[in-house]
């Protein structure tokens, strides 16, 4: 079982990187490696991805028929035409799994079991390493979960394709920001486990709020304008799903698209900073469960 011919396992060498690499480059390299591992970890669950795609597609048909019925004879609703509504639904069904509104309890589970201790023993801040992992996961979800509905939808419905070139980079940026922001929200919901042990309550609230207020159940543009403004500026929810989809379907002129993405960025920064503050608070009162 054990061979003892080697000897100096314990030799200590300072782990300092070559002086030519700046810290920023090293930081990105670490971040990239963690992201890549996130991609690989989620890529191992292929059946789950397939089941998810089937579900999202079925619901895509349901939602699309409902919204098109709302648009009715007039052929438009809340400023979207029929093709824009179809794009809104099918891109939304794909994006849902990329931003991952629901079903992430990794952090809460690790807090509950005490495995969080392992995360704290790494030389990388927990918020950073969880974010990097989540970006990797989102990268895999773009390929495995977002592409299928986006390709299936146009086979059955007329969809709106971007007509202005800035829409494409704006949409890409908006998706990345939505992932970061959604991660921060999920991190905060999960982090309540530091205080509550059991996160089912906050999780239910989050599921309800994010489903309604992010634009998943219906486009938020159906709401009165004043309420829309309150939601966009007062809560992060519209920035999770509604913003990238509005950018994609070009409902507004480019200037408004840019404004919406900037607002998203503001929310993402604010909530990431909140995550770090909450994590710091939590560590001060942390009780690691069990042995």
């Amino acid at each position, binding site marked *: *079982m*054990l*061979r*003892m*011919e*080697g*000897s*100096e*396992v*314990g*030799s*200590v*060498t*300072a*782990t300092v*990187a*070559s002086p030519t690499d700046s810290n920023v480059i*090293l930081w990105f*390299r*670490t971040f*990239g*490696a*963690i992201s890549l*591992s996130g991609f*690989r*970890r*989620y890529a*191992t*669950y292929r059946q789950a991805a397939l089941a998810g795609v089937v579900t999202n597609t079925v619901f895509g048909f349901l939602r699309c028929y409902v919204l098109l019925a709302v648009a009715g004879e007039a052929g438009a609703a809340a400023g979207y035409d029929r093709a824009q509504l179809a794009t809104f639904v099918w891109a939304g069904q794909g994006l849902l799994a990329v931003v991952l509104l629901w079903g992430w309890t990794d952090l809460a589970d690790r807090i509950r*079991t*005490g*495995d969080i*201790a*392992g995360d*704290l*023993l*790494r*030389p*990388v*801040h927990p918020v950073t*390493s969880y974010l990097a992992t989540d970006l990797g996961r989102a990268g895999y979800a773009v390929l495995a979960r977002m592409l299928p509905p986006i390709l299936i939808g146009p086979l059955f419905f007329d969809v709106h394709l971007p007509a202005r070139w800035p829409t494409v980079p704006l949409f890409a940026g908006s998706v990345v920001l939505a992932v970061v922001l959604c991660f921060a929200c999920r991190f905060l919901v999960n982090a309540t486990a530091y205080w509550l042990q059991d996160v089912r309550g906050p999780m239910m609230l989050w599921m309800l709020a994010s489903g309604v207020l992010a634009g998943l159940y219906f486009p938020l543009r159906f709401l009165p304008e004043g309420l829309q403004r309150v939601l966009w500026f007062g809560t992060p929810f519209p920035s999770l799903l509604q913003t990238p989809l509005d950018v994609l379907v070009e409902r507004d002129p480019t200037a408004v698209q840019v404004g919406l993405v900037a607002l998203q960025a503001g929310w993402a920064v604010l909530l990431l900073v909140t995550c770090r503050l909450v994590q710091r608070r939590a*560590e*001060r009162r*942390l*009780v*690691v469960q*069990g*042995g």
Partner: protein
Amino acid sequence: MSLVIEAQGLRKEFTVRVKAGRLRRERRRVIAVDGIDLRVERGELLGYIGPNGAGKSTTLKMLTGVLTPSAGQVRVCGLRPVPQRTRLALGIGVVFGQRSQLWWDLPLRDSFDLLRHVYRVPAAEHAARLRRCRGLLDLDGFLDIPVRQLSLGQRMRGELTAALLHGPRVLFLDEPTIGLDVVSKQAVRGFLAELGRAGDTTLVLTTHDLADIERLCRRLVVIDHGRVVHDGTIAELHRRYGSRRLVVAELDAALVTPPALPGAPLERVEADGRRLVYALDSAGVAEVVAGLAGLATLRDISILEPDIEDVVARLYRTPIHSD
């Protein structure tokens, strides 16, 4: 020698809520660690033992920066563990027997590779350390299997490797042999002994398996109810609690009066006087044999080593005394 761990008056209290009536809950203070002083030099192999709930894991978590102490001073590798946790993480390795620090869904090989980036270890150093661990811990057979599919023994060998790949100065092991079969236990112990022999890495080991301690550690710290009740070598522990090596002499015929031997008091007489058991205080085995040889025919001589389990069980049962 340089000091690697220095703790003074280390203390940790928790508040727990206890049911005290139908709706009422009382807050109660639980003291997990009650003023521990500890100094560990570079290269030491320290056994840190105590009964369940004595505060072993809590101490380890304070030393590694996971838990904030309620009071006291602590320095590990010259750093303050909680405020400087991420920097300290580069200099220490931790293995929890009851938890996994590897990535469940990744093969060991990928986990190790990720650790190289997380700890920013130059590729050549990483490769060299991994090569040594692969040889010593026989990892090659399961490097490409996802961690969730490994047996406990295989996973533990993976955990040890993962904790050492960044070349830590201190390795904390929290019950590393728990649940392992005899062969895997020996593999882990052998590996740690080898690591200790190199003399660069400081090992702090908590365990309930005292064979781990006997095999690996010269110095033993026993804690109970959050306090240090013994800090010294295993031999000192035996001396202090009166456990000595015993010499069992089998005689051809019983002696009417078993002789008193200087430095070796008679412990007991068995088998109708044909078996005499002497404790070795200051006398050696040879002196006992010489003392008996003139009086009776010796059929057999055997030596019983003191049993550390007995000593520790006695220690755990003794009420706390401050000394």
